[in-house]
């Protein structure tokens, strides 16, 4: 038996004037899974998420969100979805407590005071509860936002770049929390630019210029790209990158830290292009499994 789907939409489309922001996107997320939503800036992630929770009307597309028609029953969907906006969107001139209290009131939560107190304790913000939300640092704002959109116990979390601009430790804590929530049966769709975050997802989807062009587990997405990658390291590697760019078979050459990644779909051509440098002293060349980032850069290069 297959897992019921928390999100099941087909042909999701949105136009802004002439611009096709989202073009026939299909997404099906089983309940309880964590899905990563990747793609360069302006590719349509935010627009897709907004359509899913009824904040933008879709020009075309059909399907369900939590078993409800996402176009007709958006008001009911809203009550069961926690949406964390890309930009911090809580009230900066309200204190931490006042923000949580407002959310609890609007959702009509029973035991409001208790719930707010609990949340403050979990956040470790009891002492700072009267501080204005606008005075919090990026990491704390993001934790507050997550706590606030979790307050009404949603079944589905839509998180739009929740960790942008957050320090590594806070990011790690954030993801531990996401996994804990998912363990409790909550479905999560989270957009991100970080590869390490993508690798913590059950599945990822990659969207480019409004088109969904890759989906699956990280391994599947990498395999589906049919990409081969060589790593070049050592002396003179910077000069080499200039020579290799544009060589036949080399679809792209990019640095990842100190290592130069040379990728292409034709393994033999790639090897031929590297052949002249094989015996250069101090230069180390080896074939490697392409990383997710190699694949994304490749997909993006292909589209241009």
């Amino acid at each position, binding site marked *: 038996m297959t897992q019921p789907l928390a999100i099941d939409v087909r042909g999701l489309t949105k136009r802004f004037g002439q611009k096709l922001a989202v073009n026939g996107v299909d997404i099906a997320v089983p309940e309880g899974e964590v899905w990563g939503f990747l793609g360069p800036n302006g590719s349509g992630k935010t627009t897709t998420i907004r359509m899913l929770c*009824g904040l933008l009307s879709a020009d075309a597309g059909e399907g369900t969100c939590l078993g409800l028609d996402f176009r007709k029953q958006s*008001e009911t969907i809203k009550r069961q979805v926690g949406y964390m906006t890309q*930009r911090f969107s809580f009230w900066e001139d309200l204190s931490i407590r006042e923000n949580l209290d407002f959310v609890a*009131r*609007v959702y009509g939560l029973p035991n409001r005071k208790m719930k707010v107190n609990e949340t403050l304790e979990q956040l470790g913000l009891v002492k700072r509860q009267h501080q204005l939300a606008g005075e919090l640092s990026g990491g704390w704002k993001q934790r507050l936002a997550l706590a606030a959109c979790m307050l009404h116990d949603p079944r589905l979390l839509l998180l739009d770049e929740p960790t942008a601009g957050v320090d590594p430790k806070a990011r790690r804590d954030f993801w531990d929390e996401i996994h804990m929530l998912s363990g409790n049966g909550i479905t999560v769709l989270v957009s991100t630019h970080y590869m390490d975050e993508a690798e913590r997802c059950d599945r990822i989807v990659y969207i480019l210029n409004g088109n969904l062009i890759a989906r699956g587990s990280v391994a599947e997405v990498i395999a589906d790209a049919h990409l081969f990658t060589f790593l070049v390291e050592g002396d003179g590697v910077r000069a080499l990158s200039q020579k290799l760019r544009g060589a036949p078979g080399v679809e792209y050459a990019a640095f990842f830290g100190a290592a130069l990644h040379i990728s292409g779909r034709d393994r033999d051509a790639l090897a031929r292009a590297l052949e002249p440098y094989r015996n250069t002293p101090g230069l180390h060349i080896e074939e490697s499994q392409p990383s997710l980032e190699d694949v994304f850069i490749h997909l993006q290069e292909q589209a241009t």
Partner: protein
Amino acid sequence: MSAILRFFRRFSAARVGAVLMKEFIQMRRDRLTFAMIIGIPVVQLFIFGYAINLNPRHLPTAIAIDDPGIFARSLTASLRTSDYFQIVKATNSPGEARRLLDEGDVTFVVEIPENFTRDLVRGAEPQLLVETDATDPGASSYALAAINQLATSALARDLSGPLAMRSATNPPFDVVVHRLYNPESITQYNVVPGLLGVILTMTMVLITSMALTRERERGTYENLLSMPATPLEVMIGKIVPYILVGYIQATLILAAARWVFGVPMLGSLTLLSLTLAVFIAANLGLGYTFSTIAQNQMQAMQMTFFYFLPSILLSGFMFPFDGMPAWARVIGEILPLTHFLRIVRGILLKGNTALEIWPNLWPLLLFMAATGAVALARFRRTLD
């Protein structure tokens, strides 16, 4: 019908309370708005109120007497005792008096023409000519209003015995006033209650025109929309706190009217408070409608001023309503301020009752309902 029922079933007073509480807290923290709420009434009241309260006295006056009769003497004496006029020259040459006026040495010339006394006794209603420097019409309007009264009472003393019947024709002579500018006789009694309406119009519309635009600009609108509050709940939650603010302003202004400007308050203050609620809500409804349309606070501000100007100019606050051309009166009749001015002046100065103000109250109610409906229709539930 079922749509309406569904609408009301969804309505939640608790959610209204949530929005209301949030607005109160934000209002309290927003120093600029808070300063505006208190500052605008105080500043406007004292600038406008006192500017118009500068009820000028001791205006330099020349008297030209062509008829040295008893009545001329009484009138002169009475002008002298009145502190509106200061007689700087008494002459028997109308030409000389006119020259003083031309040169700006006097503001008034009172001319008692030849045979004034004789004509008066005969009952021929002679003319008493008053010339005034109209370049500053405001300066002389009180004095002008006073002169008629003065002349009548001065002569009444003399018109005794067989002449008593003359004073029954009221007045027994014509005061001919020559001036280029003839405003509705404006008094501070008229202006200060009017300011109540003007100040409320300005602040109430301005404040609520920011209600949604501010959320939109700060990016919190998206968050608000993703929560289950309905447009009606948001509207009520955002408007009600400012009704209270409106009452605070009204109380300030009415207190100043009573104790600083001595405006008489003949009618029921309870009735006035009730109509104030309607007037305030009508303005808040309009401002809220603006905020559903404006893309940013700048636009909201522009809309407010676009509305504020005709309100001041065409409502009867600046210029007498009946003196305006027909098209201007049509616009004026649509504006809530027009009706409120009639109501507030009616209640305070004439002691009007509920029945008497009703013709001006229902247009306010209608305006309030219409703006509320437009605002709800315009409220966008999505970010499209």
